[in-house]
C-alpha cells in the first residue's frame, strides 16, 4: 500500500471507527496497561540492582523447573484439546441443524459455569475417595492417584479449555467446501489420502487458531492447578501468587510475570508464520 493511501485510510479511521473503539480502549488502558506497567516497573525497581529480580529468577532452579513444567502442561493440554476437539468439531460441521445445536450446547453449557465451580466438580470426581476411584474399586480395579497429580491438572484444564479449541475449529471447518472431498475422490484419492491431503490442510488454520488460544490461556492457569495439582504440579502463576500475596515480594512476582509474558510473546512469534495463509479459502463463486 502506498503512503498517501494508508494515511488517508488512517484519517478515515480517526474520523469514524476510532470513536467506536474509545470505550474499550479506555477500559483496557485503565485495567490492563496501567497495572501491567506497574508490575513491569516494580520488577526492575524493587531490587538492589535493576536486574536483581531477573537474576534471582534464573538462578533459582525451582523457578526454571516450574517455568518448563508450565509450558509442558500447557503443551500437553493443547495437544489433548486438538485430538479431542477435532473429530467433535468435524461432526458439528457436517450434521443437520438440530443435532448441531445440541452439539453446540454441549460445548457451551459447561462454558457458562464458572471455572472455579467446574474445578471443584473435578475435585469431587478425581479425589481419592471420589466418583472415579469408587467406580474403579467397585469394578475390582486398584485406585488411581488422580488428584494432586499432573494428570489431574491436565484433565481439568483440558475440560475447561476445550470450547476454546472447538469453536475456532468449527468455524474453519464449516467453511470447507465438502465438494472438494468429492473432487479428490473423483481424481483417484483414497479417502484416507483425501483427509490428509485436502481436509486436514484446509482445517489447519482452525487448529492453529484454537491451539494458540488454548496454549496461551493454559500458560496462565491458576485455580485449576492449585486445586487439582499438588506441590509437584504447580504452575508459574501459583509461584507468582506466593511471591506477591504470601511473601509480599512484588519485585520477584513481577519479574516472574514478565518472564511468562515475554515467553508467551516468543511463542506467538514462533507460531505466527504457520498462521499466515498463502491462499484464500473460497474458490471464487461461493
Amino acid at each position, binding site marked *: 500500500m502506498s503512503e498517501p493511501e494508508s494515511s488517508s485510510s488512517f484519517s478515515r479511521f480517526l474520523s469514524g471507527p476510532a470513536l467506536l473503539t474509545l470505550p474499550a480502549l479506555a477500559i483496557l488502558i485503565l485495567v490492563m496497561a496501567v497495572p501491567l506497567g506497574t508490575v513491569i516497573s516494580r520488577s526492575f525497581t524493587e531490587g538492589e540492582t535493576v536486574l536483581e529480580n531477573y537474576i534471582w529468577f534464573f538462578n533459582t532452579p525451582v523457578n526454571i523447573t516450574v517455568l518448563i513444567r508450565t509450558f509442558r502442561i500447557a503443551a500437553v493440554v493443547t495437544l489433548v484439546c486438538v485430538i479431542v476437539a477435532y473429530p467433535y468439531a468435524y461432526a458439528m460441521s457436517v450434521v443437520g441443524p438440530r443435532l448441531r445445536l445440541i452439539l453446540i450446547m454441549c460445548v457451551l453449557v459447561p462454558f457458562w459455569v464458572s471455572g472455579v465451580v467446574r474445578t471443584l466438580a473435578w475435585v469431587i470426581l478425581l479425589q481419592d475417595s471420589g466418583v472415579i476411584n469408587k467406580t474403579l474399586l467397585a469394578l475390582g480395579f486398584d485406585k488411581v492417584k488422580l488428584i494432586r497429580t499432573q494428570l489431574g491438572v491436565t484433565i481439568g484444564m483440558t475440560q475447561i479449555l476445550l470450547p476454546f479449541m472447538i469453536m475456532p475449529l468449527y468455524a474453519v471447518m464449516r467453511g470447507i*467446501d465438502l*465438494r*472438494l472431498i*468429492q*473432487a*479428490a*475422490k*473423483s*481424481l*483417484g*484419492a*483414497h*479417502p484416507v*489420502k*483425501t483427509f490428509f*491431503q*485436502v481436509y486436514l*490442510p*484446509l482445517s489447519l488454520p482452525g487448529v492453529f487458531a484454537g491451539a494458540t488460544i488454548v496454549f496461551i490461556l493454559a500458560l496462565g492457569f491458576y485455580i485449576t492447578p492449585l486445586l487439582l495439582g499438588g506441590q509437584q504440579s504447580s504452575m508459574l502463576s501459583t509461584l507468582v501468587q506466593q511471591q506477591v500475596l504470601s511473601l509480599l515480594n512484588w519485585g520477584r512476582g513481577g519479574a516472574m510475570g514478565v518472564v511468562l509474558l515475554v515467553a508467551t510473546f516468543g511463542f506467538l512469534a514462533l507460531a505466527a508464520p504457520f498462521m499466515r495463509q*498463502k*491462499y*484464500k*479459502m*473460497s*474458490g*471464487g*463463486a*461461493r
Partner: protein
Amino acid sequence: MTNERKGAAIDIEACSKFYGNFTALDDVSLRVEPGEFMSFLGPSGSGKTTTLNLIAGFTDLSKGEIRLGERPISNVPAHKRNIGVVFQHYALFPHMTVAKNVAYPLRQRGVAKAERDRLVEGALAKVHLEKFAHRYPSELSGGQQQRVALARAMVFDPSVLLMDEPLGALDKKLREVLQLEIRRIHRELGSTFVYVTHDQEEALVLSDRIAVFNKGRIEQVGTGHQLYSNPATLFVGQFIGESSILRGSHRVNGDQTALDIGGVIVSAPGTPKTGGAQVILLRPEDVTVQAPGTGPRDGRSNVIQGKVREAIYLGSAMKYEVILADGTPIVARTATQGEAFGIGASIELAWNPLDGRLLTDDGSVGGH
C-alpha cells in the same frame, strides 16, 4: 488432431435412487455411446445431477446397475472408477497452486515427477493456462478456474468425463467461449462426455445427443434436431426451443386428429398415443401471420383468427405474440420482408397441418 483411443460406453440399466419416500430417479435406462457427447437436460430436481452422481460414485444406487465399458461399477468406490468430474463451483483445492491441482490425480496414480510435469504442462496448454501454473485458484477469474478444473479432470486421461453445469456460474459471453473450447477438447480427447445442464441452448450447442430429464425419468433421448422437430412429449416440446400450445376437444379423422379451438377446427397428423386431453404444439417459424382473408383457403392449411399483442423487430425476423379469441397465446416468427402488423391488429394465423405436433397434455405447460 484426432485420437485413436476411444472413450468408454456408459450403460445405465434400470437405475433408481430413493431418499426415504422421495424418488430422485425412477427406473431410468440409458446408453451413452463410446466417445459420445451426451447432455442431461432438465429442470432442477429432474434427476439429471443424481444420475451424474451415480455414475461418478458420489451416491449409491438404490436399484439397478451401471456399467462402464462392460464392467459393472456400482460396487466400485468413486476413487477407483477413473472418471473425471468437473463441478459447477470448480472445486479446486484452494491450498494448492494450479500446477499442484492439475498434478493431483497423477500423484494419486503414482506417476513419476518428470512425467507428471510433462502431463500437467500439456493439460494446461490445452486450456491456455500455461502461464498461471504457479498461481493459487483464488488469484484466478471464474473462467480461468473452470479451465483449471477441466485440465485437472482430463490430465489423467479418463475414459469418461462428467460435467455438472460447469459453466453455470459464468456470464453469457464467457460461457459461449468455453462451450466452444469444451467441444474442441472433446474432439481432441475422444473420451465419452456427459454434460449436465438446465440450459437447452447449451445442450444444443454441445451435444451429439441429449437426454431430457423430468421428475426423475428420461422423457426422450435424441439429437437436438430430433427433440426439436419430433418431441415425444409435451414436456420435451416445451423445454427445447420456443413453442405455442393449442388446446381443445379432439376427434380422430383417419390418420389425422382435429382439435376444436373455440369453434375453429384445426388438425394435426397422427392419432393420440395415449388417452387424455390432446394438444397441438406449434413452432414459431411454422406459423404465418397474414391479413384476414388473404391467405390460401385451399382447405389444407389451418387458419385461425387472432389479435396482435406484441410485435417485436428482431432484425432478420419479426416476432409476433398473438392472442386467440379464447385467450390462447401463439408465437409466430416471420421474415421481415412481408407485411408488418402493429399491436392490436386483427390478423389471421395459418400453418401447414403437417407442421403441428399432436401431443398428450402431460400438465407440463408453464414448466419452462
